[in-house]
């Protein structure tokens, strides 16, 4: 569905934003329930995450200087902008602007804002957390980029909606998951790193650096951070879905694929401990990067899986 007028486009973007928030926040609650079963418990209500966010927004916040406040705003703004560009099923708010690299750049704005704000809080643990987050980013970005570049090279386009459309041509068999299984595995490991799921949870690591960047957040700022967190999960999982699982043509397919990816990542997280930061980098530069290069060679030089 192509929408040409700017006001309508913005409205569509906002609708995507609202959908992303409600969908991902509910799913987070549901995942908490699933994880609780894994722990032999019942777990909270499915709408617990909404309660948490609204509670935080109703609390008073402490400020640690303007860098801290501005950073949160910048992060939330950057991430929300990224979400608005994300193709959702058949809807794209800004057609022609769903190039993969747009997400990479816009996403970086959000991450930078977050880093700025966390360091602005002045707590050394937050500083360590941010350093770890950036170091880990260096780790997972490289293999992920190699796989994505291989896909772009193979399919000849970098537009997410077009990539999804290409994969929808022949059903499951044309998914990149089937055509490029090795690359998918590498990218899924990178996705775990992006989501901050264990074993790549080094930058949160409550037992080591007391939840890292979030250490000084409370009240409204923490609430905004949680909203930001939900949005960034939405972006990361949607990216993965569009790149490897053929996007989603209808709501049911979207729901199923999205849930499968996110719940699988959460369950893996519950069966793993966390690596140390040096182990994370060593790991990413060994296994995922090897898989990614192998896949790239297969796609670019051998022409397999295109």
């Amino acid at each position, binding site marked *: 569905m192509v929408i040409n007028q700017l006001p309508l486009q913005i409205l569509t973007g906002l609708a995507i934003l609202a959908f992303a928030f409600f969908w991902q926040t509910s799913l987070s609650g549901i995942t908490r329930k699933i994880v609780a079963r*894994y*722990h*032999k*418990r019942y777990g909270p209500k499915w709408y617990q995450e909404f309660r948490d966010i609204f509670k935080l927004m109703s609390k008073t916040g402490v400020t640690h200087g303007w860098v801290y406040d501005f950073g949160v705003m910048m992060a939330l703004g950057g991430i929300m902008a990224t979400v608005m560009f994300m193709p959702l099923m058949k809807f794209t708010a800004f057609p022609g602007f769903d190039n993969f690299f747009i997400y990479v750049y816009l996403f970086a704005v959000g991450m930078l804002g977050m880093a700025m704000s966390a360091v602005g809080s002045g707590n*050394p*643990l937050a500083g*360590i957390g941010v350093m770890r987050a950036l170091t880990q980013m260096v780790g997972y970005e490289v293999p992920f980029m190699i796989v994505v570049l291989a896909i772009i090279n193979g399919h000849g386009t970098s537009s997410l909606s077009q990539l999804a459309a290409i994969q929808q041509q022949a059903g499951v068999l044309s998914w990149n998951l089937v055509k490029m299984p090795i690359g998918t595995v590498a990218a899924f490991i990178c996705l775990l790193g992006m989501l901050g799921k*264990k*074993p790549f*949870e*080094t930058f949160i*690591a*409550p*037992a*080591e*650096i*007391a*939840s890292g960047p979030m250490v000084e957040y409370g009240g409204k700022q923490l609430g905004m951070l949680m909203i930001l967190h939900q949005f960034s999960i939405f972006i990361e999982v949607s990216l993965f879905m569009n790149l490897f699982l053929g996007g989603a043509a209808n709501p049911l397919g979207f729901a199923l694929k999205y849930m499968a990816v996110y719940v699988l990542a959460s369950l893996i997280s*519950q*069966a*793993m*401990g*966390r*690596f*140390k*930061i*040096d*182990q994370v980098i060593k790991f990413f530069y060994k296994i995922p990067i090897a898989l990614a290069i192998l896949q790239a060679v297969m796609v670019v030089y051998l022409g397999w899986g295109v």
Partner: protein
Amino acid sequence: MKEVKLFLGPQHPGMHGNSSIHMYVDGDIIKRSYLLPGMLHRGFEKSMERRTWMNNIALIPRICVPEPDPNEMVFALNAEALASVEVPERAHWIRMLVLELARLSAHLMAFGGIGGPTGLYTAMYWAQADRDSILTLFEEITGQRVYHMYITIGGVRKDLPKGIEKKILAFVDDLESRLPDYENLVLNNPSVQARTKDQIMLPAEVVWELGVTGIGMRSSTGKAYDLRKVTPYARYDKVEFDVPTATYSDAHTRLTLKYLEMYQIIRIIRQILDLMPAGKVREKALDGSALRWQVPAGQVYSAVEASRGEYGYYTVSTGGTMPYRVAVRGASFPQATLGIEKYLPGHRIDDAALWFDTMGICSPEIDR
């Protein structure tokens, strides 16, 4: 680069209990570190001088929270040694049963507790759920879940309730059938192995230098240095059990030993239930009202093997109604104080909580 000071505790998710490690870090490496204990200091040794022998039974379990029964045992052993009391045969076996159940619960807590510093929270949830069953058994035996006040001078407070043997056996069977799950979840887990294998070493020289006991000692010296074997108390010389040992002590070895000891505990519990004789459970230790007992003068030290190592009391009596002086040897005192000062530096920040955990440190027994 400038050294940055970081605190691990007192309020920190990586810290069990209430004490603080001050770490000066350069980059990710700890350069200097010190323990700041005393947040749990209650002046136990002074309070014990102000209470009668029998009143003390109610006070002392609180010295070590995760495993309170060794406190009662050593206190009773000391008083019995001073007063030359013979404990009835059945009481010995009941004491062993309670001590082993307590050890099992402490081991479960520590083994699952590895989930905290490594981030494998599932292990924690599972282990706590199993520990809860032990606390239920304790509630049935002693009337209390955590602080039992069950082992008294001259025996135990009351006999076992009817039918408890079956419940204990059922629990032990159930736990034994599920222990391999724990092995797969924790010990064979690649991410936990990455964190623990060849990390956080404890060489034998360090053991002797600091005076580390318990699993730390056995994991590096390779000898069965277990007080239950070396100086058997109660009836530990009548039951068969092995003491798992190792000669290469990294964090993973110490975890593995904890896991293997759980099997031995289960083995001991089965034998106890099998061999326990019938009879009296408490001998009147001294004449008169229990609250006016005057334990004969003397100075004696007794120690038992707690889950973390040698746990002992040094008791001085002058023949009064109250102990003249009781000194507590917390099992983890050496590694927590001097160990942190000398051997934590050089590790990464990531390892500090894991170091604290796998060395088996329990802060209340250090602070007393």
